[in-house]
């Protein structure tokens, strides 16, 4: 079992306690220890608590996601205090360099509350991927409920352990080694639609019964839809930054 050091890595918003960058505490066994005279934000703490035992445990298995997850954000949307959790070396007591700890590649983050429903994202996507306009060739689609004022952009979330890739019976779906984006090898695709059914986010579409699915390719690392979005409902980055829902 590891001991942990939890440090304020970044304050993205305004924290009135205040928690400041560099503030820290330790989780040793079943105890939380703060440096003399220092405290820790109760609300941030309660949101991180369930995570500490998971981070303390040692798991020997492929695809363990625990080492990847080391930055947590406080629950106050205006605060945006980001805590970094590090496992400590049992011998030296110093933070460990964790294997597999590199950040996942950035993806398209969506905030439906900001989306104006204009579908400008669809137009640049369809032009870039199909030399034409019309949602038939767009990899992002805005689902709308006009009476309720709901506009929801649907786009691939580039899941770490993507169900669409796993379920594909022919190996047509894979990952781009550079960007991490889900890829489709059209020649291997048999249009079975299993990927579409497997996606919990409606992020992969079959344009018609005899075409391969359409999925966001992140435009090779500079998504055009994000660039064009006039309300910042679309962002390119990692979850955990302010504004992601």
């Amino acid at each position, binding site marked *: 079992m590891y001991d942990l050091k939890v440090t304020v890595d970044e304050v993205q918003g305004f924290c009135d306690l205040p928690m400041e960058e560099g503030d820290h505490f330790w989780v040793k066994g079943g105890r939380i220890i703060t440096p003399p005279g220092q405290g820790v934000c109760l609300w941030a703490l309660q949101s991180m608590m369930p995570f500490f035992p998971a981070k303390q445990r040692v798991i020997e298995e492929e695809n363990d996601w625990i080492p990847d997850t080391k930055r947590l954000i406080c629950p106050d949307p205006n605060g945006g205090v980001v805590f970094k959790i590090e496992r400590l070396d049992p011998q030296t007591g110093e933070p460990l360099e964790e294997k597999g700890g590199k950040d996942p590649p950035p993806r398209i983050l969506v905030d439906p509350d900001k989306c104006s429903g*204009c579908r*400008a994202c669809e*137009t640049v996507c369809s032009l870039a991927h199909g030399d*034409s*306009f019309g949602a038939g060739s767009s990899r992002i689609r805005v689902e709308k409920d*006009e009476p309720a*004022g709901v*506009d929801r952009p649907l786009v691939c979330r580039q899941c770490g352990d993507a169900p669409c890739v796993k379920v594909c019976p022919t190996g047509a779906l894979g990952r781009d080694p550079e960007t991490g984006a889900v890829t489709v090898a059209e020649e291997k695709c048999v249009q079975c639609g299993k990927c579409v059914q497997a996606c919990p986010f409606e992020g992969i579409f079959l344009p018609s019964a005899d075409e391969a699915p359409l999925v966001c390719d992140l435009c090779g690392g500079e998504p055009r839809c994000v660039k064009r979005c*006039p309300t910042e409902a679309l962002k390119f980055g990692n979850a955990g930054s302010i504004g992601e829902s």
Partner: protein
Amino acid sequence: MSFGYQDRVLKVDLTDGSTALEELSSDFKRNYVGGRGFNMKRLYERVPPEIDPLSADNVFFVSVGPLTGTSFPGAARVNFSAKSPQTGILGDSNTGGFFGPELKFAGYDQLVIEGQAPRPVYLYIKDDRVELRPAEDLLEKDALERQSHLMEELDDGRLQVAAIGPAANNGVKFSGIFCNQVRAAARTGMGLVMASKNLQAIAVRGTKGVRVKRPKEFGELIEGLDKEIREHPEYEDRLMMGTTKLISQLNEAGCLATRHFQTGRFEDADRVSGEYLAENYKKKNKGCFSCTIPCSRFLEIESGKYEGLKTEGPEFEGLAGFSSRVGVNDVKATLKGVDLCNRYGMDVISTSECISFSMELYERGILTKEDVDGLELSWGNEGAILELAEKIGRREGFGDLLADGVRSAAERIGGEAQRYAMHVKGLEVFQADPRGIKAYALGFAVASRGGDHLRSEPSFEFKEDPEEGQERFGVPESAFRLEYKGKGKVVNFHEKRSAFADSLEVCKNTISNMEILSYAEGAKLLNALTGMDFSAAELERSMERIVNLERAYIVREGVRRADDTLPRRFLEEPLPEECGPSAGSVVELAPMLDEYYEEHGWDKETGIPKAEKLRSLGLENVLADLKSRGILD
């Protein structure tokens, strides 16, 4: 293979249910570009003076433009045209949202709808599939519910619907066509034309896409325009408030239509302003298709009398129409008034004119309480105002008299009443006082569809830059709203810009007000899209052609210089003292008209286009027609 255009016109005969396809000719595209241009060309040919607007012989046209459905910012619009049952002359109205692009994606540039269905139907178009389907069950519902109902019935979340509301079925002359819930093409009574044809709605879904000849070049041009828009000085205000920003601006200028144009300053403007709405009721921005300056807003009333009212909008016209124009200072009641108009499917400008007109007559004792069904029509009495709006929508009691529009109501009331009817050629005027904006005043005195600001939208007069006035129009005063000199030239320029926006079917906020897209840039963009070879000069000439064709249309209907006028108040009564910079102002119409006709090459005495002008624009058929009718010799 077609690029930019779909090259297809769908013709539907409602009488026998038959449909036919026609290919767009390249001359038609070159000479009329799209949208409004396409509709006006056919309207002139198909609907002469002999045709009664409410008969089966009137023809209803729906057009999109070459840019509709593309990534051009705000390439969202669609024009609905026919002879107007409200004015008896040219009927035409357009709206944004998503209906236009979907029609384009279904593979059509224009619909030509004629005849009269034997029973209520809606037109369902899914790509090549075209059906007339029974619509009896729509009649019970309001204009907004009808749209949702068809989306459910056809089980298609991306279906786009253009629907009329109960007002149209009840015969209200200023009933409109509603898309995306509240996006209205409500001027000149196009909703009533649909109702007269028993056509309750058009539901469309398209999967064909719009092909681009040179995608890379087109994409780069759009990126440049996106950037220009984002860096425009008006960007932030427009994004926050859209057109509702005008309440504060016009009130400050002293020309906000207040208590039926009795003054230009509303003492409670800050309680009904765009700023106030944005701060207290705005949930988020809403946008038309492909708009990078999405200026519409989704609002919600969370407490009080109208709690639970959720709506997109309103625009400036609805906001001022149900606040300053009728003296209401509770913006929640204003939102309710606009919502009622939307649900009945009526034009907010015409409705608010009919109500405020009645209120002024009531104040002056021309109408008594007995005349108005016992309503206490005093300024700001929101209960009476909302009830009167409903009475109009249902054509009930006093509302029935107003439902034919203010011109007809004034004629029937008679006497002094006509003096207070704020319309031009039967179309009610908007929410800014023309005495404080002289180019707009001229613009709606001459507009081809009657008292309307959007045929010209001459926003140049707000520039306040004498050098630019000199440089562009040869008249320094042209850049100042209270001056009348040079306004004939300014309106001429902006009429073509508005025709440009309406033919491309894009938004006038960008094309007219923000002056995005010169004719040269437009030509380049169209060429990259279509592979054709438009030039800047040719495009501008096509716009002049459209303006002249429309003028010829209304001249053929009997319009002359004497009809290009304004309600007497604007010509005779100076704006009162409290109107600050606009105080003391009236509209100097005659000299502006002289300059305007001269600028157009139209006869100054009659307002009829001269033969050589028509000939120079290639309108020989029109010339021959006017000659054969003895209008030109």
